[in-house]
């Protein structure tokens, strides 16, 4: 039982990332009808926002101290962070919390980027075939990825979680299991809560605001909404920006779990597409449900007992499920009838 809970928990944090990326993908597809292969690149850019912020916060001043010598006989270098010098303990705290702080930077950047992408590129592809949309966004993803690679190198750049969350929580004790039976890192708990908050607020935004109402109406029947005198294109542009923000902050918060490198976007993108397909193209609830479901299934498949039974299953389980779902129920688990069924 405790092993079961542990696997569920392990699956949840991956599932959270899948769900957040898939949510943006399906939102863009549902509103704009565009298949965006560059969405994973946005997730990756979000992660690199954290890298940039961390670098900026830890700018150092190097002073040579001639009175003390190192073992090599050269003057000792004394490095101090500017931030600590200026702000004292608060500066230290800021550096420690660089990952959450990065969100403040990531939100505006991702919003601008998303809107620019939609206005500058995607807009011209509404009327083109899906194949063209896939190809152009695929090209864009390569471009973004290569720029990041040129700037930050090909190696993963580890981002530590804040000190107070760096340990693990013994969740098992809370649930009445033996000590150390179910141990789960604090940061992953934070990530789960964070993912839940983001998901809830996106849903609330779409469900309870006038703006969200218009967007939902536009998803159902774009033309009629346009005829009512609403500038639906403009709203959809903002939706695209919103999707970019969701993917971006998901990327920021994921950095302590997975050190960002330039191809993490592509890795997550392929899986997120599968998630969207399983959940149902254009269905928000489906994307979230399928994201968590696939994350958990993947973590079960990587258990040793399962692997010895079916070798290699952990590598292919997600794709297998996608194949089965597409063949048996092409509109996905929660897809609307008639949307992209052929």
């Amino acid at each position: 039982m405790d092993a079961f809970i542990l696997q569920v928990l392990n699956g949840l944090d991956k599932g959270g990332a899948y769900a957040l990326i898939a949510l943006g993908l399906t939102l863009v597809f549902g509103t704009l009808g565009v298949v965006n292969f560059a969405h994973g690149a946005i997730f990756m850019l979000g992660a690199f926002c954290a890298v940039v912020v961390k670098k900026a916060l830890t700018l150092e001043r190097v002073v040579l101290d001639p009175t003390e010598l190192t073992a090599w006989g050269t003057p000792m270098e004394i490095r101090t962070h500017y931030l600590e010098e200026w702000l004292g303990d608060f500066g230290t705290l800021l550096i420690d919390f660089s990952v959450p702080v990065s969100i403040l930077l990531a939100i505006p950047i991702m919003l601008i980027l998303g809107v620019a992408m939609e206005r500058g590129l995607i807009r011209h592809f509404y009327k083109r075939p899906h194949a063209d949309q896939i190809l152009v966004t695929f090209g864009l993803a390569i471009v973004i990825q290569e720029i990041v690679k040129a700037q930050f190198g090909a190696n993963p750049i580890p981002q530590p979680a804040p000190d107070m969350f760096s340990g693990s929580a013994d969740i098992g004790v809370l649930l009445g299991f033996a000590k150390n039976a179910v141990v789960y890192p604090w940061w992953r708990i934070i990530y789960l809560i964070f993912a839940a908050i983001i998901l809830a607020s996106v849903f609330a935004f779409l469900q309870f605001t006038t703006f969200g109402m218009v967007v939902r109406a536009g998803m159902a029947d774009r033309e009629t909404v346009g005829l009512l005198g609403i500038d639906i294109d403009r709203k959809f542009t903002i939706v695209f920006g919103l999707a970019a923000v969701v993917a971006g902050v998901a990327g920021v918060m994921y950095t302590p779990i997975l050190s960002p490198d330039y191809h993490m976007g592509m890795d997550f993108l392929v899986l997120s597409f599968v998630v969207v397909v399983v959940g149902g193209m254009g269905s928000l609830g489906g994307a979230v449900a399928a994201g968590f479901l696939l994350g958990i299934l993947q973590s079960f498949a990587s258990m040793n007992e399962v692997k010895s039974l079916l070798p290699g299953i952990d590598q292919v389980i997600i794709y297998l499920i996608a194949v089965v779902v597409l063949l048996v129920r092409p509109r996905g688990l929660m897809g609307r009838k008639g949307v992209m069924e052929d």
Partner: protein
Amino acid sequence: MNWLNITKKDRNLLIGFIIAVLLGPLIMEPIGGGYPDLLQKFAIFGIFAIGFNILFGLTGYLSFGHAAFLGIGSYTAVWSFKLFTMNVIPAIIFATLLGGAFALIIGFIALRRSGIYFSILTLAFAQMSYNLAYSVLTPITNGETGLQLRLEDARVVDGLFGVERGAGLPTTELFGLAMSGWSGYYFCGFLLVVMFFISLRIFRSPFGLMLRAVKSNQHRLSYTGLNTRPYTLAAFVISGMYAGLAGGLLAATDPLAGAERMQWTASGEVVLMTILGGAGTLLGPIIGSAVIKYFENIFSSFNEGILLDAFSFFPESIQHAVAAFIGLFVGEGWHLTLGLLFMLIVIFLPGGLMEGVTRIKKLFRASKSSPSTQKDQPLEES
């Protein structure tokens, strides 16, 4: 000359093509591409792209998993070298057949859907093969290291014919002809011509017409009571066999097979080749693959020193800035150029280079004759 059963125009095209392949080294010499390794790549990826074009160009089904068949072809060929003989003929036959067999299985499932679902299904299958090749299938694929020849390989057939086991690793051969260098190029070139001819016949056949009908309107076609799936499946299997052959040739010219050949970026590359040249045209994919392989080779060989030399006529500060900027796009950054090219082509020239040629031709003709005699010509491939 009618035994080939083709029109005069096609015959001229074919003859021109054969001459171009024969003179390949001479044509490429002045622009620094006249060496066998590169020309072999032209021919091999030309075959790959022609095959992909039969699926994508004719039926419009965008497969994002064709590199899987390429990888399967390579593995098969290397296994044939290891188990049977260093002769390339059995290797490429096995590679083609196995590529086709896998295409049959994957196509049978994936073709139940169309549009982006088809793309995602093929992508899923390719990723599955890639992941499996890296993990559980390590006994067959040798995982990350890649499959290589070894001294202690069985090579049963070679053993039967009493081929001497040398001290070093054996090399691939075609009845004594080495498969590296120029003989390798002409072998690949010969197959390229054959494959080009087959694709020409498919384009001109009723079967090809049917595939094009699938592309223009599959619904309408099925309303006439016709089952389109056998046709699309046939196209998928044929293109899978082309990919298997190309993979086999890659292994024949350099007996190595690694899983990275199956990665989805590799699938993206063949899509790019086809689109760059012009999807649905006969020559387009070959031109596209040649252009990409050529620039990949040229661009990736640039480094900072060469760039600084090239811009030495600028004052020093500008020289460094320009070299640094250009350096983003060449050498290691070649993929960036590729991505940009990809976007530009899809945005501005969806018909690829062949459409560009047609447009220029049209301009040329329009300036000669008065506009009133101009008719809207349907885009014929040539």
